[in-house]
């Protein structure tokens, strides 16, 4: 399926290549560069590019293009999903997935890719199995390896690959047994010019960090499982149990993983936790524009709205912005025309505002496009949908684990049109 993989950085250098079948010349990437040139923006490079003899399927993550070369029919999503899994694995191993990190760990990268694909077909993609095969590099281990000449390839044979619970490594031991679950909900919304909601939906995930000894069997139940409209599970979750009882029953992988992502049914009205009053206008004939933005909380159920960050792409005609923020700091990049305002926490008594003027190119006519305002925020200790975990039980092991559940609401793609 996947013939070769090329990693290309932002400046167009191929800094890593790996072949699983016969070697494909790196000149095949020229087709990719052509497409890249045509696309102007990096994110507009088509994910699938046909060339005379091959097809290039690429993903862009962390400003690195991962370009897979394939030769015959294969579901494109299969390749895309796999490439993303590769990036996730790198991130998991090196903390960040940058060109420097990959170059520093090129041998580990190679070993990983070797295990993940066999003849172009995915072999071991579960992080628990991979970590059994190849130990992630840590500073300490790198030092020890340098001195003792020992390796970061697992000495023991990876029995996990043979297991019926392939996502969990065997022989896990912890002195402190802990299981933490983060319920994170994101609000995707488009708010109209007039402040009315055009579309709003809640997408949530439950991320888990489970460090439990042995083979624990967990069940997680919700107070109000009916809220969840559409869910997708980590493979460890027993699907039929969810269908029948709306209980999550699973033997967790070791470490961090995403247990569940869900969509809250669209019947429920979404509480929008912030409102924006805006007045962005340009007068015909003058080279000045007005910018006036005020943020305020609404429907937050008494919780503070934190880490608020407002960003907006101003029209190309704007030369500079001369604004004053009542709170936080703002920056305006005159090249990209990106205005961003780091507000911080919203104080309901004293609403944060950003006011001032924008200067336009002299003589230029008034821009006819309206900037949209993107807002990011966080609300701790609350799931906006009202989802609540009822209880977490553990079977199969005798100790008492420490359990913790955290809720958070964030802005997803939260846009205000002006």
């Amino acid at each position, binding site marked *: 399926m996947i013939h070769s993989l090329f990693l290309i950085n932002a400046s167009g250098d191929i800094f890593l290549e790996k072949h699983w079948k016969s070697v494909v010349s790196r000149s095949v990437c020229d087709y990719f560069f052509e497409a890249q040139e045509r696309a102007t923006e990096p994110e507009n490079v088509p994910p699938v590019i046909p060339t005379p003899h091959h097809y290039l399927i690429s993903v862009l993550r962390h400003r690195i293009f991962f370009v897979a070369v394939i030769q015959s029919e294969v579901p494109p999503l299969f390749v895309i999903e796999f490439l993303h899994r590769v990036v996730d694995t790198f991130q998991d191993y090196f903390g960040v997935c940058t060109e420097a990190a990959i170059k520093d760990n090129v041998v580990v990268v190679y070993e990983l890719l070797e295990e993940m694909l066999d003849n172009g077909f995915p072999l071991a993609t579960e992080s628990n199995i991979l970590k059994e095969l190849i130990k992630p590099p840590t500073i300490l281990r790198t030092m020890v390896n340098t001195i003792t000449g020992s390796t970061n390839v697992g000495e023991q044979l990876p029995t996990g690959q043979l297991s019926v619970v392939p996502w969990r490594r065997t022989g896990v031991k912890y002195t402190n047994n802990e299981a933490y679950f983060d319920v994170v909900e994101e609000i995707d919304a488009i708010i109209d010019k007039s402040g009315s909601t055009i579309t709003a939906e809640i997408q949530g995930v439950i991320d888990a960090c489970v460090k439990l000894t042995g083979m624990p069997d967990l069940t997680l139940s919700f107070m109000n499982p009916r809220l969840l409209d559409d869910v*997708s599970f980590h493979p460890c979750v027993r699907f039929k149990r969810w269908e029948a009882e709306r209980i999550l029953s699973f033997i967790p992988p070791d470490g961090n993983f995403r247990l569940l992502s869900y969509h809250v049914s669209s019947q429920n009205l979404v509480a929008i936790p912030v409102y924006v009053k805006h007045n962005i206008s340009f007068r015909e004939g003058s080279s000045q524009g007005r910018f006036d933005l005020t943020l305020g909380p609404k429907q937050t159920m008494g919780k503070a709205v934190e880490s608020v960050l407002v960003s907006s792409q101003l029209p190309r005609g704007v030369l500079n912005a001369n604004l004053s923020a009542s709170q936080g700091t703002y920056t305006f990049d005159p090249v990209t025309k990106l205005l961003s305002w780091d507000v911080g926490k919203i104080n309901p008594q004293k609403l944060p505002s950003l006011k001032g003027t924008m200067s336009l190119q002299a003589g230029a006519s008034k821009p006819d496009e309206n900037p949209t305002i*993107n807002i990011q925020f966080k609300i701790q200790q609350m799931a906006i949908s009202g989802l609540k975990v009822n209880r977490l039980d553990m079977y199969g092991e005798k100790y008492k684990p420490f359990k913790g559940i955290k809720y958070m609401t964030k802005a997803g793609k939260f846009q205000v049109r002006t």
Partner: protein
Amino acid sequence: MSSSSAFNDDKGGSSSVGEPEYGHDPASGGIFSSDYKRHDDLKEMLDSNKDSSKLEAMKRIVAMIARGKNASDLFPAVVKNVACKNIEVKKLVYVYLVRYAEEQQDLALLSISTFQRGLKDPNQLIRASALRVLSSIRVTIIVPIMMLAIKEAASDMSPYVRKTAAHAIPKLYSLDPEQKDQLIEVIEKLLADKTTLVAGSVVMAFEEVCPERIDLIHKNYRKLCNLLIDVEEWGQVVIINMLTRYARTQFLNPNINESLLEEGGGGEKTFYGSEEDEDDEEEEKEKKSEAAALAKRKPYVMDPDHRLLLRNTKPLLQSRNAAVVMAVAQLYFHLAPKAEVGVIAKALVRLLRSHSEVQYVVLQNVATMTIKRRGMFEPYLKSFYIRSTDPTQIKVLKLEVLTNLANETNISTILREFQTYIKSMDKDFVAATIQAIGRCATNIGEVRDTCLNGLVQLLSNRDELVVAESVVVIKKLLQMQPEKHSDIIKHMAKLTDNIQVPMARASILWLIGEYCEHVPKIAPDVLRKMAKSFTNEEDIVKLQIINLAAKLYLTNSKQTKLLTQYVLNLAKYDQNYDIRDRARFIRQLIVPTEKCGALSKYAKKLFLALKPAPVLESPFKDRDHFQLGSLSHLLNAKAGGYQELPDWPEAAPDPSVRNVEVPEWTKCSSREKRKEKKVEKPFYSDSEGESGPTESADSESDSASGSESGSGSEESGSGSESEESEEGSESEEEEEEEEGEEKDQKKKKNKEIKKPVQESESENSSEEEERKNERKRRQRKNDSESESEEEEDESESESSQSESEDSDSEAEVKKKKVKTAQTKPPPKPAKTDNKKGKKEMSLLDLDDFEPAPSPQVTPVNNFLSNSLVTDLEGLSLSDNVLSPATISPSSATKSYELLHRITGEGLSVEYCFSRQPFSPDANMVAVQIEFTNNTTNDTKNLHMEDVKLQSGMRVKEFPEIELLPAGETTTAVMGIDFCDSTQAANFQLCTHSRKFFVSIQPPVGELMRPVFLTENEFKKEQGQLMGMNEITEKLMLDVKCRNEHAIVQRVITAANLSRVPCGSDKECSPPVLPPELPVHRFSGRTVTSSSLVLVTVASKEEGTAQLMVNCEKMVIGTMLVKDILLALTQ
């Protein structure tokens, strides 16, 4: 050691000054500078006999490969290291080998023998990796070797090796396509494999090698459907795609009847929008009547296999893997009845939250689906609204979907959205929006005027691109009803002065030319202007100028004759041959000369014929003849290796081809099967035999250890061969059974309800019944030998007591027993009764299960295997499966009294040895303590104090229990390192008010943990523990304990040992004994010192038997002999 010193120098150089190119970091740019020097150096490092320098060299070489640098000249030096001991070096050599073997075929052959040796390794993982590398080496000479290796591996007993064999098939096929026939045989064999591990890989091989051999699937179809949910995600994608194709060839179109109904009810419009052309509709009707006729002949009933596929794929819509979701979605789109396709919409919309590349692919497919089945996505209209942060290619696709979804009811909302989009900063997107508006306008008559007006307004937009796009769209719209809109045409004529975009200029010119009769005054003027700028125009504009000139000449030759000639003259000398040709052609056609023929008479008709309005249709129309989700669909062109999705067959092929004969053993009762399963499971998880928490001591463990040996004991030769095959059939049995269950849902449910009850019954049932079960099982297994032996035993006389009771050792043991019994209070019932009562209680309690560990401790493996069983069962079992109630009777654990209710003033404490590994310290024995508060007051702060121990012993206290409410029971686990002695651990048990002195004394059997040995290993070890370390006793077996099961049960109860699987008894009995009689072997290690404990029980005629214990620790050995004697004779 010149080489190693050289290496050291290099290292030194890197850290100090000297030669920076020898950095540790293989990727640091410097090392690639001086070629020759570097290679010599690497060769030296590879030749050194230090692993560390070899590793360093290999790392640098791999870094070179990664950068695409040529490292092929190092081949001889590298290939020598293929047999290196160091695993990492070895792996990196493999990487190198796979990369360069194709270029250096001869040298690559040097490495082959290493892999051939690896193929014979007893460890399955080594076999697998040897096959993997061997098959990746692309050297044609070794094709026969590969073929042989694949064939062998395909019948390997390890599913992992078989999986690797499946992976190797396409590799060999691409190397030598002539092997196809042989490979198909292997594929056929592997397709019949019943493990989830193999399924995905073999289907992948099938797709690459012989996708046309759909007949190979028949027999495996149902199995694949049933296994699907447990296959790993990548395999799922491949299997689903293949099954889609399969289903298209084997089942009837499920929508035959629906189209019939639709026709009858006239409900057509809901599915097919009004935009459909008349002709199309007619065609459609024709088709339908045909179909209806067909349906009338034979009413459509969905094949149960078709239904099975749909049912088993549906849960996968919930997968986290986008590729799996897409695969299921396309399966439903192509195979499901219309009414059911809707379920996929939600999942596909969910994928839109994913990475932009995923969105891109999903939106392409949604766009195709919306054309065919618009209703499906209508509820999710808002999910396709566009955000300013979306990449342009995503925006355009979303627009496409929105346009496809537009109908009379939602068009106003959509148009309002479009209005916002037009103000976007992304001009490409604005252009796409304008086109979308145009399409909405053509498709939905009601809004045509609104759209047109909006577009005309856009003509005054400042952005030229926007205007140009509007012009092009307006042109298309006007074509539909030109007479109404002459003012718009006039307005557009004015635009020629400003608009520079060629396409737009060309469009305007065409419009004016086409409708010059509506704007008779302006048209010649426009031509005049154009003639002036002709030479500077783009080709496409020039062509339209010529066109305009020709049309005006024909309608208004008086005013434009000269102009036209001027333009044609200009065109005659144009650089572009197209334009020159056109000019020549038009001149001949319209300017009457004596030479020109009849054609010029028709010139007017030719040029001014009424042209049909263009149909603005989606570029995604008709794309669904490609299988959705495929590369070919995405590119709208057939990709290499694409398998056409066949049309539905007219009549269904014979469904009986999928019937599989049901082997007899699937008919046995469910409970017994369940037991089999439990036993079977640990094979996968523990099989590589790390010591760890291996087998529990319950009665079933014998067959489990049987399978264990199967994996480890290949070298033992023919003796264990039969064992292996038996194991294989067992696992198959299990899979098959699952299938059976899946097939009959109802039955399964019944079973589920019954199961727990049955299980608990079995737990309480008398031993006889257990034995009966056991025997039944055995019968089924056709283990006739043990069967007959059992009978023999029973027919024997019952004179066992006398002999054993004579021995003093016996008496001693008895005394000890009495001692423990004495600590027991008089009011308590007899020990056994007590135990039973206990069990029953725990069973009842478990109905409302509490998270605290249950009092009846069961070995961890049971828990695991149990939950795994639920996993395998399609994850459908209810709570009670998880509770220990269903766990097989673990008679091994005995509870002992620690503190009686009366002495403890209402607090009663019992302990038992759970036989689980004590996780904080492997050298400790886990003791499970159960506290019951029989008072009416709460007991607080339960903890231990003042531990008195013999030297060397250690105790890990249980965590303090804060509160034990009245009437409640709780448990805690503590660990004691008894130092392999039976000395008691004394300590005080403290509550908030009182302290009690208590002591825990372990029976010797609890001082060990089971280890797995194969028979050969056992004998080898036994041979080393002769003489002083061997204790032999003769005994007379208790009447009730003359069959194999009872002996095993009792020994395992007495001591925490695991059974050594015996292959054929005849072969392996020690020579002293008559060969027909069974020998039971058990093995373990002491917990603290890990000394081996080997127990052999050889039964002889007339109920006599010989007990032999081999143990390094003689004291332990002696005591163990006594305990086991006691257990076997009573």
